[in-house]
């Protein structure tokens, strides 16, 4: 967190010096590039000198190579999938010819999920968990912000559960999900529900707290306006409370999504749920000479996706926020 904040701070200090515009532009683009180049250089230097029992630590070159391998593997798997569907059609047809009562159907490809499918699973899971958490957290947050009594009642619970690590929740969630979620033809797999619930449990809190703070610190004048106009409860919330606390809510949502993404990877790793975390764990277990490079690909992917998610939330925040002058970073 602190890194994310200090880096823009440095940028701002740099920007504050009154340089010509061209220079300003150059520094804005050149500095990140310089940073990345130095990082890559240091990385490859360090990597060469770290000897693990699985060979030397992968440098940028090895990681790039594995990225290509992963793309190739994905394509090969897709080809296999399409052949699988062809074979299945033929087999179904052959069986229908012998056994007309057979209710044939096309089953999904049975091969192992590729890296890119794992990414998709992770993204999908984190989004579901995040949306569920937000749908719970925002209303409760508004309630806490509006009513001092509600806040006092709920606050101890928030403080109690907020610092709990996802890994502590996980065994409980796993057992509860397998006990409660029983269906002969489930729409979602149990592992998906387990991960999503774990994510939701952990990204409730920042949204809840920020919403509560945002709602409770609405400008007195606005509340007076609402009183003068004699707005009913619902209109008060939709016309006054929500619009004025949008910036705070989004700050909470952004924090929540970031936490959710981190939690998900850990949860997948521990619970063997499909996704990027499982990919990392499987590679670690494999212990092949390429494993470390493949894990590094996953680490970078996780970082890039986390960054992208944050930018998307920032863009949303800019779009929805009424206060266009506020500095958002």
């Amino acid at each position: 967190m602190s890194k994310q904040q200090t880096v823009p701070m440095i940028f701002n200090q740099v920007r504050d010096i009154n340089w010509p515009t061209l220079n300003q532009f150059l520094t804005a683009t050149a500095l990140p590039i310089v940073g990345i180049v130095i990082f890559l250089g240091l990385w490859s230097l360090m990597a060469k000198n770290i000897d693990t029992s699985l060979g030397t630590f992968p440098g940028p070159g090895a990681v790039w190579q594995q990225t290509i391998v992963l793309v190739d593997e994905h394509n090969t798997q897709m080809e296999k999938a399409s052949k699988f569907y062809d074979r299945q059609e033929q087999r179904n047809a052959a069986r229908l010819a012998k056994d007309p009562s057979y209710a044939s159907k096309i089953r999904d490809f049975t091969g192992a999920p590729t890296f890119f499918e794992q990414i998709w699973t992770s993204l999908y899971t984190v989004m579901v968990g995040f949306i569920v958490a937000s749908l719970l957290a925002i209303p409760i947050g508004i309630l806490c912000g509006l009513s001092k009594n509600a806040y006092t009642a709920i606050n101890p619970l928030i403080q109690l559960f907020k610092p709990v690590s996802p890994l502590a929740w996980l065994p409980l969630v796993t057992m509860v999900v397998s006990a409660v979620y029983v269906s002969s033809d489930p729409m979602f797999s149990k592992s998906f529900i387990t991960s999503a619930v774990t994510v939701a449990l952990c990204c409730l809190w920042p949204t809840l707290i920020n919403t509560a703070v945002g709602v409770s610190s609405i400008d007195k004048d606005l509340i007076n306006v609402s009183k003068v106009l004699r707005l009913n409860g619902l209109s008060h919330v939709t016309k006054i409370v929500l619009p004025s606390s949008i910036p705070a809510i989004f700050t909470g949502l952004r924090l929540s999504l970031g936490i959710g993404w981190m939690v998900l990877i850990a949860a997948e790793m521990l619970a063997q749920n499909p996704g990027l975390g499982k990919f990392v764990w499987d590679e670690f277990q494999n212990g092949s000479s390429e494993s470390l490079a493949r894990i590094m690909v996953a680490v970078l992917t996780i970082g890039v996706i986390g960054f992208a998610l944050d930018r998307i939330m920032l863009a949303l925040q800019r779009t929805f926020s009424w206060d266009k002058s506020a500095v958002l970073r």
Partner: protein
Amino acid sequence: MTNLKLLSSLKRVVKSLRVGVISTVLSGSVIVTGVSAQELGWPEKEELKFGFIKLTDMAPLAVAYEKGYFEEEGLYVTLEAQANWKVLLDRVIDGQLDGAHMLAGQPLGATIGYGTKADIITAFSMDLNGNAITVSNDIWKEMKKHVPHEGGKPVHPISADSLKPVVDDFKSKGKPFKMGMVFPVSTHNYELRYWLAAGGIHPGFYAPHKGDTSGQINADALLSVTPPPQMPSTMEAGTIHGYCVGEPWNQQAVFKGIGVPVVTDYEIWKNNPEKVFGVSKGWAEKYPNTHVRVVKAMIRAAMWLDENNNANRPEAVKILAKSQYVGADYEVIANSMTGTFEYEKGDKRDVPDFNVFFRYNATYPFYSDAIWYLTQMRRWGQISEPKADSWYKDIAKQVYRPDIYAQAAKALIAEGKAKAVDFPEFATETGFKPAQIHFIDNIVYDGSQPNAYLEKFAIGLKNDSKI
């Protein structure tokens, strides 16, 4: 995933348009599934999920999948690596998995209620041998002094006699000597215990009736559970001084330079039964045709693995090296799968039968194999009460199901995919192998007399002894 979903829904559309045409075209031609269908019914359940642990002896599953043997039986199988043996067993019991690559002791242990109580059966034995005992470099350095050498190389098999001074030294210094095995009812646990006890090192008793399932009562060497893929890293971290595990995790230690395999289980007990394919009894009763078809596909895979004197092994290694199966490097897996075994770095020896998948009737579920595991459970106290010989036989017959195996084999013979000579004579086979002599301590095992067998061991519970 989206790609796939889209593809499958597209295919569905295309298929509904084309089915009519294809079925008229194909109705005359021969498709493999059709042939057996006259005797053996269609599978009741077509979408199956099987679990496995990342070990080379899961090969029959991977081969049956990759070679299309499952599909030819009309089965759409998903193979999924599991975190550890406990998770795997629990998921078979609660139905998340239809079946799994299991330790031979797991169906037996579950049936007699050691650990989780559940009725698990097996109709297919997956392989013979395939394990080894590895010790860390430091231990090997000490041990080597006591190992007889010939021509500069250690003489194999190495018995635990040479480990005993090392363990005694640990004891005198008050340090615990720790070793890893993969599961309380695993073949590895019993093989490691057998080897240690044969060298006079007490591996410790279990006392489940007193709530003690640590297996370390009176132990000279403390054994504990570590999942197979984590063995090398756990030993590297110094938590354990050695371990007994399946491949490729012994060869991995050689490649990583962190330990030395000292003895293979082939040397402890020649052609010992290793993994089985286990399913829950309820599942087997609900889907009998499916079960037979699964066994058929796996017999074919096992035959392929041993065909022409292991000619297909390099291809099998390529399959296993894929990250979704075992995922270790080709060279590491090939080291043991292609008929050799590397002990100390550079000391590579021929062990053509290190992994046996089909020959010597490896896939047939012998009652005597089941009884051997039960005798070891009794020997180490996992079975706390003495049992009659008949009890051993009854449990073996409950769990091991050669009848289902015979159905599958006969179907394959009828289809011309296998020859009758490759199987035991089903009409006369009793399920008991003749007395077996090839143990490291030269003790003879006769499966029909389990209690008499237990009497022969110097270390271990027998008849009415109790802890």
